[in-house]
């Protein structure tokens, strides 16, 4: 039994710690958040999925062998239509330019970062500062109900009640970053979320950008990479990021219903790193098979096509035949451009 102050404190704190919630609640929350909030680090999320698969050794190669991701030649070389962006911002802080667009089953996201960001010494770099607009569909869940039940501060956003929350985070260097997220429901079935991070007066900036959002416009998310038809239960996500119309990377990831498979096709202006490479024939061209430097927990094939680079990665247990067959089915459309990048 505790006999002095310090012992009593230790006992009480230990008792409190024992009341910790079960890990399943957090894991469920993480899965939900991953699905709902692709954010601009979507590629990292996809990579983590692949890494997780590798760690638990799921025999996905066999699955692919018996159920090819790509249905057949008739679906190849048919470009999927552009995805319209139904909302756009009409105000941004000075110096911010478009750096990313993301499309998932439930979310369309646009990101702006300070001009001049993107690469440092040839290494991809993301600024801590950004503005992001997410357009969530009803499939993302009843966010309006969640919001109305929250105690988040309210604000008028273009005539509807929105919710504005501040938060802090850390930069890679440990500096404290401040951010603000404004969320509102402009019409039934659509939730908009405007996030600013590491921008002075983030609350005011977030509100101003949010209030500048209008419907309409001609902005789209083009789809220059296609897997063709996906088997039932699969979903895919598309991410386009870059610093200019001549410096970009398109990443498309297909994932099974239970995250039991992740295949990523990357179409880029930059030559990717590939370790332990051996030659392989991909899409009728000489390419390479090996371990992608950017995602060492996967296996990948790389081939140069029309002056750009196509990389297809799969979990490390995937054999060369399966990987090349999958890569051969990926369609790319070199004439698709991204004039919005860097503007």
């Amino acid at each position, binding site marked *: 039994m505790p006999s002095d102050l310090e012992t009593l*404190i230790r006992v*009480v704190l230990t008792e409190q*710690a024992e009341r910790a919630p079960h890990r399943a609640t957090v894991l469920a929350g993480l899965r939900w958040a991953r699905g709902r909030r692709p954010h601009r680090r979507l590629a990292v999320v996809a990579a983590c999925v692949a890494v997780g698969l590798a760690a638990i050794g799921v025999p996905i190669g066999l699955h692919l062998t018996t159920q090819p991701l790509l249905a057949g030649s008739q679906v190849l070389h048919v470009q999927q239509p552009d995805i319209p962006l139904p909302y756009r911002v009409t105000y941004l802080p000075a110096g911010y330019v478009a750096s990313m667009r993301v499309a998932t089953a439930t979310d369309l996201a646009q990101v702006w970062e300070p001009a001049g960001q993107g690469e440092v010494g040839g*290494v991809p770099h993301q600024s801590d500062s950004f503005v992001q607009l997410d357009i969530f569909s009803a499939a993302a869940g009843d966010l309006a109900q969640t919001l109305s039940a929250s105690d988040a501060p309210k604000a008028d956003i273009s005539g509807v009640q929105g919710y504005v929350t501040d938060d*802090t985070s850390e930069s890679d260097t440990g500096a404290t970053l401040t951010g603000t997220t404004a969320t509102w429901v402009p019409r039934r079935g659509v939730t908009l979320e405007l996030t600013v991070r590491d921008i002075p007066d983030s609350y005011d900036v977030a509100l101003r950008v949010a209030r500048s959002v209008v419907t309409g416009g001609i902005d789209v998310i083009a789809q220059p990479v296609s897997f063709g038809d996906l088997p039932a239960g699969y979903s895919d996500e598309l991410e386009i990021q870059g610093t200019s119309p001549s410096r970009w990377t398109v990443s498309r990831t297909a994932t099974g219903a239970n995250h039991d498979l992740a295949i990523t096709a990357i179409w880029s202006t930059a030559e990717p790193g590939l370790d332990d490479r051996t030659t392989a024939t991909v899409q009728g061209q000489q390419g390479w098979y090996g371990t992608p430097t950017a995602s060492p927990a996967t296996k990948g094939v790389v081939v140069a096509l029309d002056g750009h680079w196509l990389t297809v990665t799969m979990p490390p247990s995937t054999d060369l035949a399966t990987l090349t067959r999958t890569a051969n089915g990926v369609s790319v459309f070199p004439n698709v451009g991204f004039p919005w990048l860097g503007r």
Partner: protein
Amino acid sequence: MRHPSRLGVVPITFDDFVAERLDQLLRYATALTCDPHLAKDVVQEVLLRAQQRWRHIETADQPIAYVRRMVLNEYLSWRRRRANRDVMMAHAKLAELSPSVADSTSHYGERQEMLGRIVRLPRRQRAVIVLRYYENLSDAEIAATLGCAEPTVRSHISRALATLRAQDVPAVPSKGGLHHAV
């Protein structure tokens, strides 16, 4: 792209880190917040952010220390000022966890009183107490974690202990009667 390992540190994947450390982080956050619900929110938010910058964290000498610091910062900067609710919830939950017959009423009451004092501490003082008596960190380690000087840590501990030693604090606060320092 993953950063190369530094000084022989073997990077750990985010998923492996979560598998190994999630329970530990949840216990730490619960001791810190005295609220399992808030602890869950804090840890979840931190892990989402940690995942985004994992390629940096994985190369740290101690990723767990880095993430624990993120948990602490999240708690200290927690904007949903639920202070009073924290206290009420903590006591309500504690009351639900009725002591077993083997635990004497006096000892249970003693711990309940202490919990009431801990949750009233200003957040930074409470953090210092948790880092000292739950995490067993030294003054220097606490100072590094909080980003302050060692004398500041000692000052926080001294004030916190003085408060915790006081005998005139009611065990269960009345609703609306608290002004939880943050």
